[in-house]
C-alpha cells in the first residue's frame, strides 16, 4: 500500500484549497453531529431525572389477582356470563427475600430497594391529610431514587418513630423538624411519629403525597408482616430498563414495570427527539458524503492525464482505485478528528452558556469516548463510500485516451 499512500497524500496536498475546503466542511458536519448527540443525550437524561423524580427504573409488584370462573367449559361460560373483576388487596411480593439475591446477581441491576407502601392518614390536631405511607430502608432507597439530594431539612434517618414528610405537607400541617404527627392506616389505629426530615421533590402534589417511615413500622401499619409491596430496582443503563424488565418478566410470576411503561408520554417525547437527532445526523452525513464525492469527482477529471501516465507506467486499476478510496478515507478521518475536537469544544462552551431557570447547567459536557470512536469509524467509512464512485471512474479510465486528452 506504500504507493497508494504516497500518491493519495501527494494528491491531497496538491489539491490545496480544494482539500482544505472539503476537510473544513467535513469538520463542521462532524462537529455538529458530535454536539447535538452529546447535547441531546444529556438533555434527555436530565429531563428523565427531573420528570421521574423518585421513581425507580424498574418496579416489581405482586401480580394482580384475577377472578376465575369455577368451571372453565364453554357451557359454564354460557351459564355464567358475568365474572366480576377482583378488588386488588395490598399484598406482599411473594418470596421477596429469596428474590433479592437472584436480582443482585443479575447483570445490569445496581441497587434493590424493598418498599412497604400503602394508604394512610397523617394527622396533627384537627388536620387530617391522606398520604401514602412508604416504608423504606434508607441506604438502598437512596441508591434507587437519589432521594438523599431531595432532603431540604433534617436528615434521612429513619429510626423507629421517625417520619419524613414533604415541604408542602409540612406547611399544610404547620409542622417543622422535631414536631409530632400521627400516622394511621385502615389496618392500624396509628401512632405518634416525630418529623425527622423534610424533602422537596420539586412538584407540589408529590410533596404532599408521601410520608416515609422505616420498613418495619410500615409493615406493621399495612398488615404486611415481613412483606413488601414492591421491590424497586436501579439499572446501569437507563434506556435498557425495558429490555431488562422484559427479561425479568419471563423469569418471575410478578408484575415487572419499567419507567418506560409507567411514563409512556415521556417515552414518546423522548423517542421523537431521538428520531429527530437521527434524521439530522443522517442528513449531515449525507451532505458530507456528497461533498467528498463531488470534490473527488472533480479531482479525477483534473488528474485524468496523471492517472493515464500512472497507468501507462505500470500502476494497475486496483492501485488507482485504492489511491482515490484512500483520499476519501483520509478526508473523512481528518474531518472526524478535527470535528470531534471542535464538537467537544462547542459542547463545553455551550454547556457553560446555556443555563436553566435555577442557574444550574442545562446539560453537562460529558466526554463519552464511545461516541468519539464511533464517529471516527463512521466518518472513515463515509469517506470510503463517498469515494467509491469517483475511484471507480478513475480506475476505469483508458490510459491511451487519458494521455491524449
Amino acid at each position, binding site marked *: 500500500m506504500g504507493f497508494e499512500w*504516497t500518491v493519495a497524500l*501527494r494528491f491531497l496536498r496538491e489539491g490545496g484549497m480544494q482539500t482544505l475546503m472539503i476537510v473544513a466542511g467535513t469538520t463542521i458536519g462532524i462537529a455538529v453531529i458530535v454536539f447535538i448527540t452529546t447535547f441531546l443525550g444529556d438533555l434527555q437524561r436530565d429531563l428523565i431525572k427531573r420528570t421521574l423524580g423518585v421513581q425507580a427504573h424498574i418496579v416489581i409488584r405482586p401480580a394482580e389477582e384475577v377472578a376465575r370462573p369455577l368451571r372453565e367449559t364453554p357451557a359454564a361460560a354460557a351459564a355464567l356470563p358475568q365474572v366480576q373483576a377482583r378488588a386488588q388487596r395490598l399484598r406482599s411480593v411473594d418470596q421477596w427475600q429469596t428474590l433479592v439475591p437472584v436480582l443482585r446477581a443479575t447483570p445490569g441491576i445496581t441497587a434493590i430497594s424493598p418498599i412497604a407502601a400503602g394508604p394512610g392518614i397523617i394527622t396533627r390536631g384537627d388536620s387530617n391529610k391522606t398520604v401514602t405511607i412508604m416504608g423504606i430502608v434508607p441506604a438502598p432507597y437512596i441508591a434507587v431514587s437519589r432521594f438523599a439530594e431531595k432532603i431540604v431539612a433534617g436528615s434521612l434517618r429513619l429510626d423507629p418513630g421517625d417520619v419524613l414528610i414533604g415541604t408542602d405537607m409540612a406547611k399544610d400541617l404547620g409542622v417543622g423538624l422535631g414536631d409530632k404527627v400521627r400516622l394511621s392506616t385502615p389496618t392500624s389505629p396509628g401512632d405518634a411519629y416525630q418529623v425527622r426530615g423534610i424533602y422537596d421533590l420539586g412538584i407540589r402534589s408529590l410533596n404532599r403525597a408521601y410520608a416515609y417511615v422505616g420498613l418495619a413500622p410500615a409493615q406493621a401499619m399495612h398488615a404486611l408482616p415481613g412483606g413488601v409491596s414492591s421491590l424497586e430496582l436501579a439499572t446501569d443503563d437507563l434506556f435498557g430498563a425495558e429490555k431488562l424488565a422484559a427479561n425479568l418478566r419471563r423469569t418471575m410470576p410478578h408484575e415487572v414495570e419499567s419507567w418506560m411503561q409507567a411514563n409512556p408520554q415521556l417515552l414518546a417525547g423522548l423517542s421523537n427527539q431521538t428520531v429527530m437527532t437521527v434524521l439530522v445526523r443522517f442528513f449531515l452525513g449525507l451532505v458530507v458524503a456528497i461533498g467528498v464525492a463531488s470534490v473527488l469527482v472533480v479531482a479525477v477529471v483534473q488528474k485524468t*492525464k496523471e492517472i493515464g501516465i*500512472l497507468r*501507462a507506467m505500470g500502476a494497475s486499476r486496483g492501485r488507482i482505485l485504492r489511491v482515490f478510496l484512500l483520499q476519501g478515507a483520509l478526508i473523512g478521518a481528518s474531518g472526524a478528528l478535527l470535528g470531534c475536537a471542535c464538537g467537544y469544544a462547542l459542547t463545553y462552551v455551550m454547556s457553560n452558556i446555556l443555563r436553566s431557570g435555577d442557574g444550574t447547567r442545562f446539560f453537562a459536557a460529558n466526554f463519552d469516548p464511545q461516541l468519539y470512536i464511533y464517529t471516527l469509524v463512521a466518518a472513515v467509512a463515509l469517506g470510503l463510500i463517498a469515494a467509491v464512485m469517483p475511484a471507480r471512474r478513475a480506475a476505469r479510465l483508458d490510459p491511451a485516451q487519458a494521455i491524449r486528452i
Partner: protein
Amino acid sequence: MNAAIIELADIRKTYNEGTAVAAEVLHGINITLRAGEFACLIGPSGSGKSTLLNLIGLLEPPTAGSYLLKSRAIQQASDDERTRARLETLGFVFQFHHLLPAFSAIENVMLPGLMRDGAFTREQRANAQQLLTAVGLADAMDKPPNELSGGMQQRVAIARALALAPDLVLADEPTGNLDTHTADEVFALMRHFNETKGTAFLLVTHDPRLAARCDRVIELRDGTIVGDAASKTSK
C-alpha cells in the same frame, strides 16, 4: 542477432468494431524489434502511428494478429498482467512530458520504483540521482516540474522511462514541442542511453532530421508499413 523484444505478426486494429462506423486503422502490421535497436516510426498524421505505439505499449489491445512480448503471447493476458509487463519491460516518453506536478523531479524518476517496491528506497534515490546527473539535471533534482523548462521536463521524463532499466522505451514525439536545439539535446540523450545501456528505443517523429539519425526507419502510411529499412545516414 539480438533477442527479439517485440514480435508483431499481422496485427490489425479496428475501432468501433461491429458497428456501421467500424474503421480498420492498422492493416496487418509485421514488425520485430530487437534488443538494442534504435528505430523510429514516421508517417503522415492519421497513418496510425500513435495507435501502433499504444498497441506496442500494451495500452490498447489489437483486434487481430499475434503480439509476442519477449516471446510471450501478451494480448490474451489480463489487464493486471499487461500492466505488470509495462512496468517491467517498457518505458514511456510522451510529447507533453506528463510529469506528476505533485512530485519533485527526482521523485518523478523514482515513481516506477515506488510502484515496484511499494516505498521510496535509498537504491531508487541513488539510481535516480545517477540518471538525472546523466541527463544534466544534477542541480534541479528537488525542483517541482513546473519550475523546469520544457526541455528539462522532457529530460526528467527520459530519466523516468529508464528508471527500472526497461528493455524498450516507447517515445511518442518526444521532441515534438521543443526548439531545434533542445530537440537535438534530448535526441542525443536517448542515443546515449541506447549506446551505453543497450536499451532499445522506438520513437514516433515528424522530424525528418531526427529520423535520418536513427538506425532503422519504419514508415507507416494509411495503416500499412510502406518502408522498413536501415537509415541511409546511419553509421
